[in-house]
C-alpha cells in the first residue's frame, strides 16, 4: 500500500513539474475546503476563482493559483502555508479564513517574508505585531462599533440582549466590542451565552425575552443565528435582530425562513447594492458563472485576489517583500466590497454595509463609513 502510494506520488509530482510553465506567477490559496468550516472556504474560493478568470494575468504573465486545503485543522493550517512557500514557491498567499488558523500560518509567512493576505479573518490579534500578515476585511472592533451605532441611532434601542458564542473567538470579540460601545452610549445589555454546534437556545431565549429587550444582538455564525431567530420568533419575540458578518449566508434564510425577517447585520458587501463599478461587474459575472448571487465571503475572496494582483502590479516585481510593501500601501483601491485602504498595521480601513432581511431577501439598508 505504502509503496504504491510513494510510487503514485512520485509519478504525479513528475507530471506536475512538467505541467508547470516558466512564465507564470504563482499565488497560493490556503482555505478550509473540507472540515467543519468548509462552507466558508468554498465561498471564498468561488470569489477567488472568478477573479482569476476575469483577470488571469499580471505583469504580462499568467497567474497560477495553488489551492491548499487546511481541512479546517490548525496543524494543517500551519503546514499548508509552509507547503505553499517551500514546495510551491508562491510569491504571496491568499488566506486563511478562520482567525485562529490564520494565526497558525502567519509566523511561517513572517519567517519567509511572504505576504499573507487574509480575506476574512476579523480577530484583531491576527495582524498584531506582524509585518507580512494583512487583510482586506475590516476588524471586529469596527464591526462591533458599527452595530452599536446602528442599534442606538437607527433602531432606537435602549436595551439589548447580547448572545455570545463562547466557542468562537470571533463572537467573543465582537460581543465585547458591541457591549463596550453600546453601554458607553447609555444602553443596557443582558448577556447570554451559547456554543457553536448548539441547536437549542430556548433556555437562553426564554431568559433574555423576560427582560423585553429592544434588540437581540447575536455575534456568532449563521447556523446558530438561524436556529436562534426561529426559536425566538416561536417564543413570541417580534423585535429586530442584529448580527455580525457571520450571519451572511443564503442558508440563513433557507433554514430560518420568515423568522429572520427584520434581522439586520453588519457586512462587507451587498450583492443587490454593490458600492463600486467593479462590484457590479463582479455580481453579474458571478451570477453568470454560479447561477446564484454572491455572498460577502465570495466578494472578499474576489477582492483578496484583486488587491494581491494590484500590489504585484504596483510593485512591478515578483519579489514578495516588494509585493508586501505594495499591499500595505494600498490606497482607495476599488474592490467589489468598497474602496479598500490597507494601513501599515495590515488592517483594512473601509466602509461597512448594513443589510436587512426583508421577505427572505438580503436588502441593503445603509453604509457606515469609518
Amino acid at each position, binding site marked *: 500500500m505504502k509503496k504504491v502510494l510513494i510510487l503514485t506520488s512520485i509519478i504525479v509530482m513528475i507530471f506536475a513539474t512538467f505541467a508547470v510553465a516558466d512564465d507564470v506567477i504563482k499565488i497560493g490559496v490556503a482555505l478550509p475546503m473540507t*472540515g467543519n468550516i468548509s462552507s466558508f472556504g468554498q465561498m471564498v474560493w468561488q470569489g477567488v476563482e472568478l477573479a482569476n478568470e476575469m483577470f488571469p494575468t499580471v505583469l504580462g504573465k499568467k497567474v497560477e493559483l495553488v489551492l491548499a486545503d487546511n481541512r479546517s485543522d490548525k496543524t494543517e493550517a500551519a503546514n499548508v502555508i509552509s507547503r505553499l512557500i517551500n514546495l510551491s514557491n508562491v510569491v504571496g498567499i491568499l488566506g486563511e479564513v478562520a482567525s485562529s488558523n490564520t494565526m497558525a500560518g502567519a509566523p511561517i509567512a513572517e519567517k519567509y517574508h511572504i505576504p499573507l493576505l487574509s480575506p476574512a479573518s476579523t480577530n484583531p490579534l491576527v495582524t498584531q505585531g506582524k509585518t507580512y500578515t494583512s487583510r482586506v476585511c475590516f476588524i471586529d472592533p469596527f464591526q462591533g462599533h458599527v452595530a452599536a451605532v446602528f442599534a442606538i441611532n437607527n433602531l432606537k434601542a435602549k436595551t439589548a440582549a447580547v448572545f455570545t458564542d463562547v466557542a468562537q473567538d470571533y463572537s467573543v470579540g465582537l460581543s465585547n466590542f458591541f457591549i463596550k460601545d453600546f453601554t458607553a452610549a447609555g444602553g443596557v445589555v443582558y448577556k447570554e451565552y451559547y*456554543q457553536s454546534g448548539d441547536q437549542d437556545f430556548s*433556555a437562553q431565549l426564554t431568559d433574555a425575552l423576560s427582560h423585553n429587550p429592544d434588540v437581540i444582538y447575536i455575534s456568532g455564525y449563521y447556523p446558530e443565528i438561524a436556529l436562534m431567530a426561529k426559536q425566538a420568533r*416561536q417564543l413570541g419575540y417580534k423585535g429586530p435582530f442584529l448580527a455580525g458578518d457571520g450571519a451572511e449566508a443564503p442558508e440563513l434564510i433557507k433554514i430560518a425562513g420568515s423568522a429572520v425577517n427584520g434581522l439586520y447585520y453588519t457586512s462587507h458587501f451587498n450583492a443587490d447594492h454593490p458600492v463600486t463599478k467593479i462590484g457590479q461587474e463582479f455580481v453579474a459575472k458571478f451570477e453568470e458563472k454560479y447561477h446564484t448571487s454572491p455572498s460577502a465571503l465570495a466578494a472578499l475572496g474576489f477582492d483578496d485576489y484583486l488587491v494581491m494582483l494590484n500590489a504585484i502590479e504596483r510593485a512591478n516585481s515578483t519579489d514578495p517583500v516588494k509585493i508586501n510593501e505594495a499591499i500595505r500601501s494600498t490606497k482607495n483601491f476599488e474592490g467589489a466590497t468598497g474602496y479598500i485602504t490597507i494601513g501599515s498595521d495590515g488592517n483594512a480601513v473601509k466602509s461597512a454595509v448594513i443589510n436587512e432581511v426583508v421577505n427572505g431577501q438580503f436588502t441593503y439598508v445603509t453604509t457606515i463609513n469609518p
Partner: protein
Amino acid sequence: MDIGLNALIQNIFNSLSLGSLYALIAVGYTMVYGILRLINFAHGDIFMMGTYFAFYAITIFFLPWYLGFLVAILITGLLGFSIEKIAYRPLRNAPRISSLITAIGMSFFLESFAVVVFGGIPKSFNVYPKFFSDIILIGQSRIPLLTFITIGVTFFLFLILWWILYKTKIGLAMRAISVDIPTTSLMGANVNNVISMTFVLGSTFAAVAGILWAMKYPQVQPYMGFTPGLKAFIAAVIGGIGSIQGAIVGGFLLGFLEIMIVGFFPSLAGYRDVFAYVVLVIILMFRPTGIFKIYSEQKV
C-alpha cells in the same frame, strides 16, 4: 400568568422534546451494548446519515415527505445492518477494545464519506410540511406542534420496542442473547440474525431521531451527529448502559439537566457540557452500572 411560570412551562416542553431525541438515540447505543458489549461510536453518524437519506429522498427523488422519511428510515436500517456485518462481525471474538476502536474508525469513515459525497456545506432541511412548525399556545407559552409530534412519535416507538422485546420471538432471543450468547445459540436461536436485527432496530430509531432533529433544527451537515451522539451516549450510561428503560430515563434526565441549567443559570451556559460530563463521571464512580443496574461489572 407571570413570566416565571411561563418560562418554566416553556422549559419543560423544551426538555421533553430534547430528552425524547436523546432517548431515541440512546436506545440504539444501549441495545447494541446490551448484546455485544460494544460502544457503537458510529451511532451518532448513523443518525446523521439518516437525515441525509431523508433529505435526498425528498429533494432528488421527489418523494412525498412521509414516503421520503419512510424510505430514509429503511435505508438507514440497512446501513446499520451492513456496518455490523462488514466491520463488527469479523471482530466479534476479538478483544472488546478492538471492536471499540473499529467503531471509532467507522465513525471517522461515515463523516469523511458524508464530506466527500454530500459536501461539507450545511444544507437546509426544509422538506417537511409547514404545519409542523405551527404554534400551539399553552397559557402564554408558545409550543410548536413539532414538539408534540416528537414526544408522541417517541412514545409510540417505545411502545413498539416494548412489543418487539416482550411479545415476539426475536425479542425473546434478543433478551436472551444479552444475558448469554453461547447458551442462547445452543438453544437454537440464530445469533447472527438476532444481532443484525438489533442493529437494524437501533439504526431505524436513530434515523427517526435524525429526521425529528433535522425538523427541529433544520439543517444537515456531516458533523451533525457528533454532539448528539456523544450526549445520547452519556444518557445511556447515566441510565445504565445495556438497559433500555435506563436509556429512556437517562435521555430525559439529560434533556432536563441541559435545558434547566441554561434556563435558570444563563451565565453558566458555557459550562453546560461540563455538567453533563460531571454527572456522567459521578455516576460512573458511585454507581458504574447506572441507574438501572443490569450487569455485574466483571466476570471472572
